[in-house]
């Protein structure tokens, strides 16, 4: 039941938030804040329990919930949580709460706004917990529709265009995923005679151990791969991202960058490589190269931007390139690095989007050419901006460095050349992060009127993120310990199948 709560509570709160609007415009955000706090508390409670013997479940899975849904088609309502899912759930709960806080002053139809926000959260929680592929697809789609509304209704000047672009990219990739899921289920049915969408059963069928890149398994793998990399995003599937991030209201940007991108990475780790190890390993050089291209190209685009929010959006492309590199390197170090990178990127980029939102609220512009000299006017905002910019360029001692360093360390044995090229992204990161600080905060104050500094609500939220980043940067061991068993389990499955593919037991 503990797991069902992550999906059911946000859905219930969403409905409640919408209904409560009748009692007053303050009620929806109160409902959302309460729900967000409860979810975060619950996630933290579960995290505290790991390592104790309060959990039941098989092997490295702490919690499991299984029920029939459409038994005729082998579709079940199967949720489960391992360390990897737990960390993603924690990140979602924390950033979900941040999103609520950053949407505090939504004036226009707040009930419907928080309804969509909470539904998106429910979908994301579900995606991280679902172990039935059909259920996974259902929740994957469920998180996109409310996000579409968030962008299209509450976005900025080009919101219709951005929302439509977001919807088309994700729908096209969603369709590809559906086709891949059904094809996978049918192939497995032909092999074993059982129609199932269950993750564990599909793993047992081990069709991926045989298929090379140009076989049925290979094509299905590519379908999943494209579907997930659109979300991640990776060059050349990224053009939806800058528009969606830039035009979305602050809370939606925080969710998009902080957690929705991670569903793509999560899908690659959870499904693509374990289900299709042989094809993935064959495809790995291409995927890793795409990751490196993303690192450098995203950074280059970030350097050229005038729109502050767009700049931050392109840095995501660069940071997620590291995650891609790590996933297809598939070493323990690289995967641990990828998990830390996802969390650190969520914290730092989420915070940067909150800061950009705060600036836009005050200055009514995102144009870097109109800003400048804000340090003297809004010192707290500027200092936090500097902090998160420095985190984003990978300063040791903060979370992003741990992620990037472990990714590079773990990718080195697989491909030293690609690792060295990826490391060049660190130089580019210094350029874009410091250019951003320079153009927004340093220099002479621009012609804009002096805005008020951050208030207590914003300071609390941003300080929480800053302290979390320092925590991840200086003491990441709890993350390693939580994710470790789950990653080992996934790696063992892949090793086992690869051994089978070579025609023998390991």
């Amino acid at each position, binding site marked *: 039941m503990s797991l069902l709560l992550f999906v059911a509570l946000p859905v219930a709160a969403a409905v409640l938030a919408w209904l409560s609007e009748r009692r007053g415009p303050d009620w929806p955000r109160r409902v959302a804040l309460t729900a967000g706090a409860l979810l975060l508390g619950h996630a933290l409670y579960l995290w505290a329990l790991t390592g104790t013997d309060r959990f039941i479940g098989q092997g490295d899975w702490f919690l499991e919930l299984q029920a029939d849904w459409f038994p005729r088609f082998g579709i079940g309502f199967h949720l489960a949580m391992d360390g990897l899912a737990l960390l993603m759930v924690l990140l979602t709960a924390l950033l979900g709460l941040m999103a609520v806080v950053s949407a505090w002053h939504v004036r226009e139809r707040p009930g419907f706004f928080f309804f969509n926000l909470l539904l998106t959260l429910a979908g994301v929680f579900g995606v991280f917990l679902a172990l039935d592929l059909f259920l996974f697809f259902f929740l994957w789609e469920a998180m996109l529709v409310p996000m579409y509304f968030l962008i299209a209704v509450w976005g900025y000047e080009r919101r219709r265009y951005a929302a439509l672009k977001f919807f088309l990219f994700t729908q096209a990739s969603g369709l590809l995923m559906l086709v891949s899921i059904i094809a996978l289920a049918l192939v497995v049915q032909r092999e074993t005679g059982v129609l199932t969408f269950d993750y564990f059963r599909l793993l047992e069928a081990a069709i991926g151990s045989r298929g090379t890149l140009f076989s049925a398994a290979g094509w299905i793998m590519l379908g999943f791969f494209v579907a997930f990399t659109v979300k991640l995003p990776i060059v050349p599937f990224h053009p939806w991202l*800058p528009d969606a991030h830039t035009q979305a209201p602050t809370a939606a940007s925080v969710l998009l960058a902080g957690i929705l991108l991670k569903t793509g990475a999560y899908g690659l780790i959870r499904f693509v490589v374990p289900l299709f190890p042989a094809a993935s390993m064959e495809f790995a050089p291409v995927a890793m190269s795409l990751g490196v291209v993303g690192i450098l190209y995203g950074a280059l685009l970030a*350097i050229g*931007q005038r729109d502050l929010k767009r700049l931050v959006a392109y840095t995501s492309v660069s940071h997620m390139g590291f995650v891609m590199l790590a996933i297809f390197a598939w070493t323990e170090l690289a995967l641990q690095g990828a998990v830390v990178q996802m969390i650190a990127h969520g914290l730092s980029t989420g915070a940067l989007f909150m800061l950009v939102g705060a600036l836009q609220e005050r200055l009514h512009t995102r144009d870097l050419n109109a800003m400048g000299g804000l340090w003297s006017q809004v010192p707290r905002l500027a200092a936090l901006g500097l902090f998160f910019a420095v985190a984003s360029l990978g300063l*040791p*001692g903060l979370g992003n460095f741990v992620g990037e*360093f472990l990714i590079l360390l773990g990718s080195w044995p697989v491909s030293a050349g690609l*690792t060295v090229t990826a490391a060049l992204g660190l130089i580019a990161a210094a350029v874009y992060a410091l250019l951003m600080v*320079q153009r927004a905060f340093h*220099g002479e104050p621009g012609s804009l009127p002096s805005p008020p500094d951050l208030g207590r609500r914003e300071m609390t939220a941003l300080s929480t993120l800053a302290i979390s980043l320092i925590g991840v940067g200086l*003491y990441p061991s709890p993350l390693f310990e939580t994710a470790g068993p789950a990653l080992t389990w996934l790696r063992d499955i892949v090793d086992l199948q690869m051994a089978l593919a070579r025609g023998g037991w390991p």
Partner: protein
Amino acid sequence: MSFHLLPLVPLLPLAGFLWLALGAGRLTRRSAARIGVSSVAIAALLVIAIGTRFLVEPPDAGAHVQTLGAWLRVAGFQADFAFRLDPLSLVLSFVVTFVGFWIHLYSAFYMAEDEAIARFFAYMNLFVAAMLILVLADDLLLLYLGWEGVGLCSYLLIGFWYRDPANGYAARKAFVMTRVGDTAFLIGLLLLFSQLGSTRITELMERATAMWASEPTLASVAALLLLAGAVGKSAQLPLQTWLPDAMAGPTPVSALIHAATMVTAGVYLIARTHVLFELAPAVQNLVAVIGALTLLLAGFSAVVQTDIKRILAYSTMSQIGYMFLALGVGAWSAAIFHLFTHAFFKALLFLSAGVVIVALHHEQNIFRMGDLRRRLPAAFWSFLVGAAALAALPLVTAGFYSKDLILWQAYAAENGSLWFWLAGWVGAFVTALYIFRLFFIAFTGEPKTPIRRTPEWTALAPLWALGILSLVAGFVEMPATLGGVTLFRALLEPVLPLPDVHAPLTVEAMFQLLSMAASLAGIALAWLLYRHRPVMAPTSGGITEYWREGWGFDLAYERLVVHPTVCTAHWARHDLFERPYDRLAGLARSLHRGLATTQNGRVRWYAGGIAAGSAVAFALVLLA
């Protein structure tokens, strides 16, 4: 004093930083200065106390390692917050805290009128803390943390006066250029770990000796990558151009960057990993070549500058070049000795220059100063002492003993050569020339700018302390011809082996006379050229123009790297990958438009369409 207090040395300035950063709005200027100065003062006292204990009763195995906690322990990788006290890190942390303290005290005078003094001291404390982490780290990854922290603080302090975009540019230039080197260092770290399976410095060096003794290729690549990192931080060729621009920061910052922190980090890194360089003789030789070239190029640039701080900046580059030269010939402790004396006299030079700059209302052009002996006696005499030490005035200054040691070993050490000695010797002459050119032009002659502010005790005390040290600090290590004091090298010998020098005493004495002559000749020429007769500001054109612009490196990098990058970024601003998707969208739209025109509501068109469709259908049925 227990060795267990060692982690407090970097943690004290770090605490000062946190206090100042979090309380920025609530602290008065005076209390901000007090916090900033006292945190470094306590750290310095602690280093002295721990150091005394270390000298009196050294720990077993000659080093004490104190682990504070785990940092990254995952999947066979391990890096901890571990600090190592051995003679090398002791000397460095003494320099950092002790010289750092005087600079902080001086800053209380220099920055007294600045409204952002709390922010200033916060950054300064963080700078010292990062540098202490760097020198005390037992693990190469922790060293890297300090290394990057130093880079960040230099960025923050060079761009401290953020309203002027030129300062911001100089700050970014410093950070990005050093980060080029840092990235090479990081890649080197990846290589070392993947090959040797550790990042603990002592373990790395042992394993490198065991595994790479017969395989110099990997050792060379690793050493080359570390060298690239060192070259960036220490402003050596070819990553040197950020240093002259780094003068944009307040003068105490320059003193801190040039004397106590930052630029010496590269020298320290190479000394710390000297085993690796010994395994790669070609790379070690390259270190010496880089040092020799940098010391000459920077020396010639310094001769033609007009800005007092730029002259000192080129001088730092040149003096670090001497240290690289020493490292390259295997004279490890000679390099550290020069680092030690240089810290005192370079800090002294910057601080007394700062007194002049403040007194003349932020005038930095040496041709608009003049006649400071009566008007600013403290600055005059302390600058004279600093200049004499930098010019290696024989026998009485610290700079003489350290530079002489390097010159001698550049020739006499196993890896040395006459060419290295010659470069150093010419450099010594040029050094004496440019610093006394500066001295005669700026400090003597006719007054050109009125005095605005005279120094207080917080400024004078550092000048006195550093002035005395610039004279006497050299007596801990004197050549065999002058009594042969070997305290400094004996202290460092457990960590840094001595080079093999087999040469008769008479040869050494001859070389010493030659280097004394170079120093005295440089001073004499400066006197002839710049004191003896009225001096004009230099005219532009010719080779001196080239020297003044730092031999054109800036221009070359601008044309070859910066400009193309900016152009590419500008060109790619509207994301090339948007285009195919836009085409697709355009295609869909025109198809839609084409089909929409058929739906025009005219019955004739519909009837025609139905008729045509039926005809085609019939035709298909009949023909099939």
